[in-house]
């Protein structure tokens, strides 16, 4: 926790208490720590001089922020319109079956988190799944098991 707050302080140092940069600071903290802990939010509230409720308001309004830690591997399935029309819901069903968690959840062993995204902008590859920043396109569903198993070994 000390380590985590040290990282938060470093990030906040960049913004010099500029209130309009609140969302930017939270984005950096989310990326660094993979979540926004209560302590991190309290620190942000102090540094920016913004009430904690307002900081929570922003943290819960935007999809990029999570108040629970994310797993080691991040799996996103695109549900944009083009992917939808190409069968993304079916792909999502297979991913849910394989990971045994629903979108927004993290597996109990903290290995995998699953999210849906509303358009990655790779519509030619639809339906698309991203695992740890790697894109997998034109998926039928059968490949999901293999992709996830490969990650499990990592």
């Amino acid at each position, binding site marked *: 926790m000390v380590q985590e707050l040290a990282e938060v302080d470093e990030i906040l140092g960049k913004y010099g208490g500029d209130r309009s940069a609140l969302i930017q600071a939270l984005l950096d903290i989310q990326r660094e720590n993979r979540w926004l802990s209560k302590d991190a939010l309290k620190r942000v509230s102090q540094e920016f001089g913004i009430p904690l409720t307002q900081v929570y308001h922003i943290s819960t309004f935007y999809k990029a922020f999570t108040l629970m830690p994310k797993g080691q591997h991040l799996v996103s399935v695109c549900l944009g319109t083009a992917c939808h029309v190409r069968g993304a819901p079916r792909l999502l069903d297979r991913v849910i079956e394989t990971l045994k968690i629903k979108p927004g959840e993290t597996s109990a062993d903290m290995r995998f988190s699953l999210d849906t995204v509303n358009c*990655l902008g790779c*519509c030619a590859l639809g339906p698309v799944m991203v695992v740890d920043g790697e894109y997998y396109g034109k998926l039928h569903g059968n490949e999901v098991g293999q992709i996830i198993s490969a990650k499990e070994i990592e």
Partner: protein
Amino acid sequence: MPRLSSATYLEKFRKEILDHREPNKPCVTICSGTGCHAYGSEEVFGGFVKEIQRNGLKEKVDIRRTGCHGFCERGTLVVIFPEEICYVGVKPEDIAEIVSTTLIENKIVDRLLYVGDDGNKIVRESEIPFYKYQSRIVFGNNRLIDPKRIDDYIALGGYSALAKALFKMTPEQVLEEVKEANLRGRGGGGFPAGIKWETTRNAPGNTKYVIVNADEGDPGAYMDRSLLEGNPHSVLEGLIIGAYVIGSHQGFVYVRQEYPLAVENLNIALEQAREYGFIGTNILCSGFDFDVKVHRGAGAFVSGESSALMTAIEGSVGEPRPKYIRTAVSGIWERPSNLNNVETWATVPLIINKGADWFTSIGTEGSKGTKIFSLVGKVNNTGLVEVPMGMTLREIIYDIGGGIPGGKKFKAVQTGGPSGGVIPESLLDTPVDYDELTKVGSMMGSGGMIVMDEDTCAVDVARYFLNFLAEESCGKCLPCREGIYQMLKILNRICEGEGEEGDIELLEEIAGVVRDFSLCALGQTAPNPVLSTIRYFRDEYEAHIKEKRCPAGLCKALISYYIEPEKCEACMICLRNCPVEAITGGKNLVHVIDQDKCTKCGTCLEVCPPRFGAITKLSGVKMPEPVLQGAEVIRKRGGKR
């Protein structure tokens, strides 16, 4: 690199760049937009660097990573200049052959060429039908520049429009040019940019802001991302010109954090622009100061609405606010703020350089210039296309898009994202034009063009969009928050087979309230997908409600997978692939799907060999009696039945 201190110096510098470049020197360009990146373009780039080095060609051949070319269906795209040889679907394994055959022996690698419908192979990129019918005045430079190198942009004439505006025109003259060009907002609203600029310019107050809206939230639309990734300077140049007209010294670019490459390239472009003196104090020694801040979005569709975006820039939650006073007069921190879309800004330098007369010669009476669309969904040539306003949907989908894959029938094209509607086959000759598209119940929108075929369910499309909007609604106003939710409940019931008489009329009634009384455009346009699907596909709604039948065979609750006993050849493929082991049978035993176990995943239909075609989807009809246990597949002598 010392700052460029005048327009003359800029021209001198441009000439120096061009003098150092040999126009006929071979150059391998590799498309490195996010789409091709997903195909592995980084590996392809790395492979070329190594292979060219290995063959001692490092001094003789340039390699350039460019922005998105647009033909995303065929990535990774590699185009070799000066001949403009276009290779599609390039993988790392192909590199050695390309280097030895094309770069060393000056011959073509046939198997990597695009093959036309007539079977002919096409060598030059611009002759490929996908590109041939387009008019890539804004997007075209993407393929020629490395977005991380400002010199590439300058070499093509970049920032000459800015120099012209600053030194040869007054702000009023620039404004007149943009007004005469009738440049309408490319983000979806279609409001004349010149009039918005004028309002902001004339608004009281000394501190004014200009903003680039790069929060491209419509699912399926990625034009702005590719422009910002591939040619960020074109957007910045337009922004600085706009700031000059309006009298603004501070600009913002609000960009989705889901676009990391766009954020990266934008930041690099800003750094380089500052270094060269295009941004900062005393730009090109004109006396004009202007700087830009980048603000990342954090994942909220509604924050792309202009007043919401401005609230987010202030550091608060990005919710829309009532616009009794236009944001052009009272925007960020209640100061006059002019917001325009990425594509709108990128069009400005062209208008200044080539003039309003040239711009208005393209397009229709009410819609001038070109528009970039993301042509996606059930279409052969998925990608980004730029066409003159007035081209018909049919031409875009068939001539450029190559029609519908798999021999399926076209059903509808959806434009305008969640704010738009569907356009059926009977209206395919509608020209792409702000007003014409609104007349048929849709809208131009930001440029998403989603093609749908016979397997797409119109009711499901409406449900999809409402589901999206229900999640994205900020919740502030009742008509939107409650109205969308109630419409979604009705649509869910209909798709689950629990539709009731009167549902369609109820949907229409709620839609009217949501449309007329919501605070912002998210709510006001939310009913469009529902109303337009009812307008053109009412029969599908009625089939779902009255017959519990999904004509497209999509809605899971209304379909059943069935193996036709006469066609089943007992090959066991579906049996083995069923993820929930719902199929019983065996060698020489007709396979049967247990409807209670079946999850409707569709795997069996996909894997059943086409020559048997034994699996079918039934909807709205009674399931045939199950085959008796142990019914054998009777085989005639010779193996055929």
